[in-house]
């Protein structure tokens, strides 16, 4: 077959070659057209939200789309949040509330990601290196036990936790939310970290033990520095999931520990067509993660593909 192809190639007419080139160019155009189309689908809602935060009522009603061309950008939305250049120096209760929610989101997301990466990495290292036996469960079963928590839908835990947290005086507290978020991301962290530790040769552990290091010394001095990329990936993925979490936050927080998604959700109904301030709030809520996504994309992809694709 291959031989036939090479023999027949020179005898092809010029018209055939041109046709092939045309087909090739058409294929390229098609690919780039599809890429541009999906880039538009991916970005337009973000573009729409950012520009809408700078529109006045008239621009919204007339469906203006392009700043400076068909509408004059205005700080209206950002002023209502107290974050525009002229209001940034003044006292603003809305801004205080926004910053409070923003900080709550940061505390919970970072706290939970840190805790999950800490205990998740330890467990993953143990599962990767040692042979455990607990009741009937061996390593394989223990791994599955941790992973299977991923199936547990938030709604199953939400109501029991509502009651438990009320009894434990943890309702509407950041620490309560941190513990729950840690639980939700722990399976993912263990998955990523186990994949990471499995790629580090066990000979390194053995060498460290010959040098007199115990299991904990080996872990902290030798293995941990090598597993850092995986830890960063697990941390960032946890951060994204915790930052965006709404269900638990909506049920278990009130005035004190309310996070940003709850604030965004609570504004959508009440304010009618006050689009510019909603758009500004949404922009502020998604901006940190868009930045993280663009800058740390490498780690996000690493985290997402851990364990699921073996080269």
């Amino acid at each position, binding site marked *: 077959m291959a031989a036939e192809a090479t023999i027949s190639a020179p005898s092809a007419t010029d018209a055939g070659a041109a046709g092939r080139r045309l087909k090739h160019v058409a294929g390229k155009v098609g690919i780039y057209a599809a890429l541009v189309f999906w880039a538009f689908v991916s970005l337009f809602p973000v573009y*729409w939200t950012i520009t809408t935060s700078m529109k006045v009522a008239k621009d919204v009603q007339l*469906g203006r789309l392009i700043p400076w061309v068909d509408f004059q950008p205005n700080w209206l939305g950002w002023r209502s949040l107290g974050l525009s250049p002229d209001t940034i120096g003044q006292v603003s209760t809305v801004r205080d509330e926004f910053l409070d929610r923003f900080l709550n989101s940061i505390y919970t997301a970072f706290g939970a990601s840190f805790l999950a990466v800490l*205990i998740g990495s330890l467990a993953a290292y143990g599962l990767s290196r040692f042979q*455990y036996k607990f009741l009937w469960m061996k390593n394989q079963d223990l791994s599955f036990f*941790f992973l299977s*928590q991923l199936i547990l839908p938030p709604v199953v835990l939400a*109501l029991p936790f509502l*009651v438990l947290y009320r009894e434990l005086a943890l309702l509407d507290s950041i620490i309560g939310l941190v513990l729950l978020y840690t639980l939700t991301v722990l399976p993912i962290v263990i998955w990523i970290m186990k994949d990471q530790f499995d790629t580090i040769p066990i000979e390194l552990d053995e060498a460290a033990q010959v040098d007199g290091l115990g299991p904990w010394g080996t872990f902290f001095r030798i293995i941990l520095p090598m597993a850092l990329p995986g830890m960063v990936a697990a941390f960032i993925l946890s951060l994204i999931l915790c930052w*965006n979490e709404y269900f638990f936050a909506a049920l278990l927080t009130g005035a004190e520990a309310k996070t940003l998604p709850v604030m*965004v959700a609570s504004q959508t109904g009440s304010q009618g067509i006050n689009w510019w301030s909603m758009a500004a709030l949404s922009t502020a809520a998604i901006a940190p993660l868009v930045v993280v996504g663009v800058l740390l994309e490498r780690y996000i992809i690493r985290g997402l593909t851990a364990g699921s694709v073996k080269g």
Partner: protein
Amino acid sequence: MALTESPSYGAISRRRRDGGRALVAAATVLFLAVGLLQALNSAGLVPLGLRDWRPTLYAFLLWSVALGVGQVMMRGDAGLKALFILPAALFTAAMAIFPTLFGLSIAFTDWNLASLTGQKFNGFDNLLQLIGDPFYWNAMRNMVIYVLFVLVEYAVAFGLALLLNAEIRARKFWRVVFLIPLMLSPVAVSWMVGKSMLEYRFGPVARFARWLGFNNPTFFTDPWIARLWIEAMDAWVSIPFVMILLLAGLQAMPKEVIEAAKVDGASPWQRFWQVVFPLMLPVSITAIVLRIIFKLKLADIIITVTSGGPGGATDSVSSFIYREYRDRSNVGYGTMLAMFYLVVIVIFITLLLKFLRKHMQRMT
């Protein structure tokens, strides 16, 4: 291994082992005693003046630490190794297993947070009410539809992964752009897309639909159109996840196989169906199963955009139970609904994994 262990780990003295055992026993007794006293306190039998269950929580934490120390004392090196997995195991047991069992005990009560009478065991009343609850079964049916849509998401994601894997310039740029929706909070997306872009008067999508010739386009009044838009928003956020998995699979695929097919004169269409697709099956199935697991948790977008409307057409089980609690404070019945859902999805996922296991990538 045995050679490298330092002598102190090798042989554990009897005294040390007994000490460890005593420590764990003492901590267990303390934990149980505190728990019992608290139970008596909250039952009003022994008034200790405790307002919450924090003491029991602290006793549990103390017990966990004692268990860890006891492991090392009793088992030496093996105990040190057990210490790696112990925090995560205890954490999961305390935060997932215990609340689930606790939830099971709530599920058989008529507990309503709004009523003053407190909880009362009511046997299978909740289960019977569930069986006769048309809104719950409606939400279940919607979940089936939403889960089936995963296949559409998969098809789109596969197309995008193929695009990104083609010979294109600035591959990293396109990849970052395609990934952005995944970063966004579903609640923010609810406003950005559901409440503003799909607004029937001024939203750009409504404007575009009118320009195409539709009179009065509305997106959340017809059941099927509403469901489609909810699904579209959820898909928009999650397609990048499936796409990234498939792209990694495509990039890990041996190039020679494709080249060989090319030399054999297979058309691109044949190459895809006869070579690429079969080779991608393990990654595909892994991606689809993971996506289904996440899809079964769908709630945020529905709660914030439609609250399940119109007439329950877009309700997911989670959003339905959320309202059962939010509007009626019906903890007992809501928990029964959730527990029943858990049983259904555990059976479903187990069967799914059983059928697909041999096609999947190794996961654990």
